[in-house]
Each structure stands twice: as structure tokens, then as C-alpha cells.
């Protein structure tokens, strides 16, 4: 039996021919994109501005959207990543983003540390020393809980390449924490 609900592909094709028909995609993806941006800027008003820019860019560019097998969300999140990075670069600013145990638990495990407050602080500190591209990998993997495949779609990389990059960053974090601990003692 055929579903009466249009699938994502049909919605995209409809939006490509008429911008007014972008509404179902907007309704469905507004919240995930909003939260994706909020986790990086930690400010509701700024998040709302950046989210509306993301959707405006998506609507302008949807005519040239090609079905490559990657999910539509990956395309949308890639626009969001670029928009947030552009905001920080243009305004030469940074946002202070709080992380709690839930955010850091998995990452702490991955770098082979115990779940203590001291280690959480060291880890947050080590994260701040990473360059933008590497922080992005950690954000996508451990804070947004993406699979390697989804990350690859968002970043325009291969799945294996993404995995390798993430493991390199984890190794770097591990060394950075050890160094920071030694300096403290």
C-alpha cells in the first residue's frame, strides 16, 4: 500500500518548484537545526537569527540540491556548521558553552579517563586548545551524537576518513590531558 504522506524526496522536489512548499521541510527540521546551533552559541536570540539564515540559504539553494544518497539533514547541518563558523570568524568572537556530565561522559571514556569533576574540567580545557576543525569533529560525534556516516555526509568526507580524524583528535586530547595534569602537580 502506498503511504499518503509524501516522503522527503517528494517534499524536496515540490520545494524546488515552489518555495511556498518548503513549509513541511521547515516544520520538520526547524527544531533539530535550532538545537544544533544553540549547542554551539548558547544564546537563544542569536540561535534564532542564525537558524533563520540557515533556512534562508537552504531555500535559496534548494533548486540546485542534488540527490546523492546523503540525507537532506546532512545538507542542512552542513549549512548550519558553515553559518556558525562564519558568524564566529566575522565577529571575531567566541561563545562560552557549558558542558555537563552527560555531554562529557562518553568523551571521557573514549580518552580513557575516569569520570571525575577534575577530569571533566581538564577535558573541557583541552577541548579549548583544539583548532576549529578538530573541535567540530568532537562536537558532531560526542555532543550531537552523530554516526560516523552522518558526520561524513555533513563534512563532505568519507566514513573511514572521518573515523580516522576523530581517533587522531581523541589521541591528541589524551596527550593534552596528561600534560595538563603533569603541569598541575
Amino acid at each position, binding site marked *: 500500500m502506498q503511504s499518503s504522506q509524501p516522503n522527503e524526496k517528494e517534499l524536496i522536489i515540490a520545494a524546488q518548484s515552489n518555495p511556498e512548499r518548503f513549509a513541511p521541510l521547515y*516544520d520538520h527540521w526547524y527544531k533539530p537545526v535550532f*538545537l544544533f546551533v544553540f549547542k554551539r552559541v548558547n544564546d537563544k536570540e542569536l540561535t534564532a537569527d542564525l*537558524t*533563520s539564515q540557515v533556512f534562508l540559504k537552504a*531555500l535559496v539553494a534548494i533548486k540546485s540540491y542534488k540527490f546523492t544518497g546523503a540525507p537532506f539533514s546532512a545538507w542542512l547541518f552542513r549549512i548550519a556548521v558553515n553559518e556558525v563558523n562564519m558568524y564566529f570568524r566575522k565577529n571575531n568572537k*567566541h561563545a*562560552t*558553552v*557549558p558542558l*555537563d556530565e552527560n555531554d562529557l561522559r562518553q568523551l571521557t571514556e573514549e580518552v580513557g579517563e575516569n569520570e571525575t569533576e577534575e577530569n571533566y574540567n581538564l577535558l573541557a580545557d583541552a577541548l579549548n586548545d583544539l583548532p576549529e576543525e578538530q573541535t567540530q569533529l568532537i562536537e558532531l560525534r560526542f555532543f550531537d551524537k552523530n554516526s560516523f556516516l552522518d558526520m561524513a555526509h555533513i563534512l563532505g568526507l568519507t566514513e573511514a576518513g572521518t573515523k580516522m580524524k576523530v581517533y587522531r583528535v581523541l589521541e591528541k586530547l589524551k596527550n593534552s590531558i596528561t600534560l595538563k595534569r603533569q603541569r598541575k602537580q
Partner: protein
Amino acid sequence: MSKYKFDKNKKPLPDDAEISKYKDFGKLVHNYQRATKPLYHKPLYKQPKVFIFLVIVVLLALLISHLAEKEEREKSAPVEQKP
């Protein structure tokens, strides 16, 4: 770039009601139309003020060229010689 700090008492993420406050598809479509439509809906010469300005510029140009031509003609006219 985001700078991270560990905070045990981190505030929860915005809820659905808060997020919905910012959702406005009408505004998105309006911004889309502004972003994709050309600056001028009418050609410049069809706008009254611009049309009058263009007419004045053309008249001034004609007047200046006419005066310049007249001056030139006077200068180059042959001088009458006495017999």
C-alpha cells in the same frame, strides 16, 4: 568558535514552546523574496522622479552642446576685410 567549560548546573536546552516562538515560515518566505528579487521592480526610466531627472540631464546636455557650438561658430566665422 565555541569555548567550553564544565558546568554541573548547566541549564536545560530550550523546550518546544520556546523554540516555536522563533519559528516563522511567513518571514522566511518574505526574506526569500527580498533576497531573490531584483532591486528594481520597474525600469529606472519608468519611475517619475528618475524620469524627470533624466529629462533635466538631457536638456542640460543639449543646452551646453548648443552653446558650445555657437561659441565655436562665432570664433571660426571669417573676419570682414576692409576694401
